[in-house]
């Protein structure tokens, strides 16, 4: 008898801790979406190997979600320093424009070497753009949302300047492989995104960098007084965000073998910020969770895939995105949680009280 009481209490405590975990609701939402898909299409989870490549809806989700995941990884670090980068969509467009225009203009426009040079050039431009954002934020001390707004507004103009306002189409298989190629049966785009994710996670959590980023985000002034070079850190995260955005832009451009400066990466900054917020990183800076961002990006990619799969026109996608944002944000908002908990307290009289305290502890 006492045994069962104890296990009951432990179970309840575990459950409370699981619910309190910042990834609980996003994971539930992701699981629910997958179940919905499975009901709509029973073969949804099937993954088959064709010509040595892995194919299937789940693989597609990861592949198509790669650009948003990439941008969101950079965005997570920027947001952790109490910043935000609105310019990533424009940076992605510029990166795609630079690479495609270089490939088209070069004499050997199908060679692998050309693609390599084009990619390097595009990423170099991204570093410059990231440095620009970092300069405005850390040296001039302009609010990040406004500082990056400058490039968000001007960036697409710059991308159109590069392409001359044309939709530039490239015929370069090595470049196209960025999006549609496979390596070890897996799509290259997904590998790039997951590789960047793993590398960032290791660098941030195995070195002091993550701690420093969080300290800058929690209190820039105190970190500076404690000897943290907050200016360098802020500068670094903006360059990193721009690099991630540029890579995403290259993947998107490679996917269509073309670049349209007006539409490439349009609103990707919003999707990325959404992924970060769903993942439980607060926009107020400080603590961040890259794993959460991964879950958030996958959730968005799955949602995008689910809408047409259950027979709703793809345009309604925005409506569901809005619902997901509101629901996830409400569930994560301390105020809304307090309201919910007060409701919960009224129904069961006493026994839930200790377990809640354990959860808090």
């Amino acid at each position, binding site marked *: 008898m006492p045994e069962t009481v104890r296990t009951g209490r432990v179970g309840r405590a575990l459950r409370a801790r699981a619910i309190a975990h910042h990834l609980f609701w996003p994971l539930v939402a992701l699981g629910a979406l997958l179940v919905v898909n499975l009901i709509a299409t029973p073969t949804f989870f099937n993954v088959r190997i064709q010509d040595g490549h892995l194919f299937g809806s789940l693989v597609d989700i990861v592949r198509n979600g790669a650009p948003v995941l990439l941008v969101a990884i950079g965005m997570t670090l920027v947001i952790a320093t109490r910043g935000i980068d609105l310019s990533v969509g424009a940076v992605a467009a510029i990166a795609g424009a630079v690479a495609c225009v270089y490939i088209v203009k070069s004499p050997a426009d199908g060679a692998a070497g050309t693609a390599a040079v084009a990619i390097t050039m595009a990423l170099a431009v991204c570093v410059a753009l990231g440095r620009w954002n970092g300069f405005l934020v850390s040296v001039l001390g302009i609010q990040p949302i406004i500082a990056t707004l400058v490039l968000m507004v001007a960036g697409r103009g710059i991308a159109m300047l590069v392409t001359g306002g044309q939709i530039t189409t490239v015929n370069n298989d090595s470049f196209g492989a960025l999006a549609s190629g496979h390596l070890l049966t897996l799509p290259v785009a997904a590998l790039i995104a997951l590789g960047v994710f793993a590398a960032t996670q290791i660098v941030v959590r195995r070195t002091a960098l993550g701690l420093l980023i969080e300290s800058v985000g929690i209190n820039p002034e105190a970190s500076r007084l404690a000897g943290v070079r907050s200016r360098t850190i802020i500068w670094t995260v903006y360059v990193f965000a721009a690099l991630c955005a540029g890579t995403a832009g290259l993947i998107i451009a490679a996917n269509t073998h073309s670049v349209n400066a007006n539409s490439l990466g349009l609103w990707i900054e919003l999707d990325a910020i*959404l992924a970060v917020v769903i993942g439980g990183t607060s926009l107020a800076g400080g603590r961040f969770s890259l794993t959460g961002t991964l879950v958030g990006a996958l959730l968005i990619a799955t949602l995008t895939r689910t809408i047409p799969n259950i027979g709703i026109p793809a345009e309604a996608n925005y409506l569901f995105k809005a619902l997901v944002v509101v629901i996830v944000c409400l569930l994560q908002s301390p105020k*809304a949680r307090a309201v919910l908990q007060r409701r919960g307290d009224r129904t069961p009289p006493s026994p839930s009280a200790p377990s809640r305290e354990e959860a808090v502890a």
Partner: protein
Amino acid sequence: MSVTMVEEGLLARAARFSPPRRYLPVLGTFALFIGMFGVGGLRYEGFADPQVFLTLLLDNAFLIVLAVGMTFVILTGGIDLSVGSNVALSTLIAARTLELGLPVVAVVLVVLLAGTLLGTAMGLLIHYFDIQPFIATLAGMFLARGLCYLISVDSIPIKDETFSAIAFGSITLPGGYYLGWTAVFALVIVAVAAYVLSSTRFGRTVYALGGSEPSALLMGLPVAATKVGVYAISGLCAALGGLLFALYTLSGYSLHAVGMELDAIAAVVIGGTLLTGGRGFVIGSLLGVLVLGTIQTFISFDGTLSSWWTRISIGVLVLVFVVAQRVLTRRS
């Protein structure tokens, strides 16, 4: 003797006069606008014609109204990303209800109600659940765009006679110049907003909120009502802007006004309003819109410049103003 003394006094006073610091950004925008128009007048034939200015007002009437709503939100230190989508939704609601045969008054009421409701809902989320304005209005932006697609994926033309009459109606000014009704309406909105912000209790609370929310709360100001109120106003202005846009294009379309929120925010920033809140004027936002419009007029008069220079020059202007503000606020 005495006359010359008075004159000297006046001259000396005029020389010593410096406008209050808080008007500096707006005066800067005004000077920029005048300067741009002057340069345009020198470079291109017919640029300095008053009709060019009046057409500028007509072409940007919807953006003026949007920027007015955005000014309220930004003055409290918030931001509203949903206005562009809200405009598109308003044009579609207007077009669809007209198609269904509703009277024009009812159509206008439905549109205004929908826009205000959307704004209020976002305000409630922001105030009562502590969701950041950026995220809450982002959700509003997606929601409005999604609703657009639910109403119609294709463009719906507006054939209503009253609508076309208003769209093409204008008042004739002395000298043979004319000003469109929509532009007059936008100017009225600016005047009303300027009055509300400067001379009503609500307006003062808006500034107080932008200055410091905790202080405003401790002073016993109605923080909740004001905070929700500014988003409701922004939603209402977006709906009004949507109606003006529907008049301008005589159609409702889900891809209308993509990215217009950026133009509105840029206009407010160029108008000298601090994005951290607490400082700024509606009249500055009007000037900001006019500056943006002048850039476009420049490019259309020139003919050799490509359209993307608009975006680049808007970005550069935002940069200049933000850096200038930064320098000014740092000194004070």
